[in-house]
């Protein structure tokens, strides 16, 4: 773009984000295709990454866009996973898309319920409430072993062939493509959502809830709505993990997973959805590489990484990328 660009900015802005959305979707598909071609034996790992991406995206919706500090996001992921898993193993609903739908519904319901508690607090109280909720859900799932399988995990999930045509194979091809399709659709919808007036309202609440209330908008119902959306996205992730791995374990409903999701989000960068995708990809892949050597080395490395991000790159990987782009852009124009 030249310095003497006098074209009216508004119509251009209106068109540009949509174009950028398609670039992003293209990039996701390209990365997926490269992964599929280069690492055909790692498709199960990629499907896991996609499921976790959905969880981290959902966390970005509440933390990055609404400013709600939560260490309990796995509640929604686990609710989706258990909803889909129980539907398949106890009620014989094995159609994969139906399982995903049930997972999303379960996550949305869990989002509505847990937000009623979490939104009551602020700051430290909010953080503690979110932790208490995920621990409570974990203990409840452990106790209700007749329904959830308890600490043995929920097994007996046998998803039917996708569209009746593509059975879930040993290499996880079908699950991988299903996951990639779901991810692309979710990212597209969320990009529209966060740009909509509703999304802008959420950002406003994050900046200054008092002012938003003074403007006449209602804060609590808006946050509740966002929590339900976030729950649906996380639940989709949980459902996908149930469909692809065929088991649901208690670890999908744990404080540890919640904390890890937060780590991925912050490493990638909050409040732009891209950071959530990038952070998850980088963290899980590195975790897989390093853990193969020694899981405790990974813990040390992850800790060092976290401290470094907080000290030197508080806006995460996408923040670094944005800075680089601005610096390069500045050099070109000068």
């Amino acid at each position, binding site marked *: 773009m030249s310095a003497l660009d006098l074209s009216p900015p508004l119509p251009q802005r209106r068109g540009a984000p949509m174009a950028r959305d398609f670039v992003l979707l293209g990039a996701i598909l390209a990365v997926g295709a490269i992964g599929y071609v280069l690492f055909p034996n790692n498709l199960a790992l990629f499907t896991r990454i996609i499921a976790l991406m959905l969880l981290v995206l959902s966390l970005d919706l509440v933390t990055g866009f609404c400013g709600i500090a939560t260490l309990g996001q796995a509640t929604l992921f686990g609710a989706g996973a258990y909803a889909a898993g129980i539907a398949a193993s106890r009620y014989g609903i094995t159609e994969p898309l139906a399982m995903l739908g049930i997972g999303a519904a379960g996550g949305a319901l869990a989002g509505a319920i847990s937000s009623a508690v979490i939104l009551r607090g602020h700051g430290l109280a909010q953080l*503690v409430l979110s932790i208490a909720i995920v621990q409570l859900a974990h203990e409840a799932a452990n106790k209700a072993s007749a329904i959830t399988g308890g600490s043995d995990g929920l097994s007996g999930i046998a998803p039917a062939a996708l569209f009746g045509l593509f059975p879930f194979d040993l290499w996880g091809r079908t699950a991988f493509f299903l996951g990639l399709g779901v991810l692309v659709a979710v990212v597209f919808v969320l990009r529209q959502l966060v740009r909509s007036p509703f999304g802008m309202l959420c950002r406003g609440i994050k900046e200054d809830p008092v002012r938003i209330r003074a403007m006449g908008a209602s804060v609590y119902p808006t946050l509740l709505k966002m929590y339900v959306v976030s729950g649906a996205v996380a639940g989709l992730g949980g459902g996908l993990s149930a469909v692809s791995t065929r088991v649901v374990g208690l670890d999908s409903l744990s404080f540890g997973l919640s904390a890890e999701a937060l780590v991925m989000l912050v490493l990638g960068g909050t409040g732009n959805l891209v950071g959530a995708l990038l952070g998850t990809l980088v963290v899980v892949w590195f975790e897989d590489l390093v853990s193969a050597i020694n899981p405790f080395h990974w813990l040390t490395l992850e800790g060092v990484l*976290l401290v470094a991000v907080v000290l030197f790159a508080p806006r995460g990987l996408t923040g670094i990328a944005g800075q680089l782009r601005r610096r390069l852009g500045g050099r070109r124009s000068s």
Partner: protein
Amino acid sequence: MQTFLSIGTDALAYGMVLFVISIGLSVTMGLMKVVNLAHGAFAMIGGYIASYATRDLGLPYGLGVLAAVAGTVLIAVPLERFLYRRIYGAPQLTQVLMTIGITFVIIGLANFALGPTLKTVPLPEALQGPVNLGFRAIAAHKLFAIACGILVAGALWVLVEKTGFGIRLRASVEDAAMAAALGVRTRIVYAVSFALAVALAAFGGVVGAELLPIEPYYALRYMVTFLVVVSVGGAGSIPGALLACLLLGAVETTGRYYMPEFGEFFFYLAVIVIVCLFPRGLLGRAE
């Protein structure tokens, strides 16, 4: 009646161990407004040092406790200087991430250096075996833990309410900028209270080693428990922390006696109810 007394003494011992460890966290969170999730890691370091000193070096128990407290403070002070000082006043999420990071590193290093096995701190003769209290016999180390809790609560009360340092500490909690303007060197007050908090954590880690066993995941397993206790009691309030520990200790122990299969269900249910009713903690002050 017998069961009631058993639950009572167990709950008291558990609550007191919780209190000794988390009172330090309460002080740092009330004073410096830092959500320090690495607090449990300091308790774990204390336990490790005591275990090494008594088991491998053969030092007596008392010296082991001293070594644990001194060693942990030595490790923690540089951390305060170079890492914590940068997150004073930062958003809570930032503090959570930084301190989770520190915890991860400590867990990884502890496992690398000392292995994943459980470490014990051998008790001296006097603390082994049961003590007959007339109505029933209870383990001596539990009595010791209860005594330590009462001692710590009393000593802290004297320190905060009756000494010059306590006055400066309370002034800094009240309004750090105003205290600094009046000549209180808040930076030193911060550093000293941080060291004190860590020393208490290490002490609690050693005293409570029988109830909360020392292993690399200690820091992660009890990270949440300590944070929860502080927020239920109200950050910065000593009586609040004591009340929260006794209350949550009672809930947890009673739940374990009567419905062990529910695990920590009732503990967290109680937390949700209390935090919803008292968002600033039981005895926390409004801001």
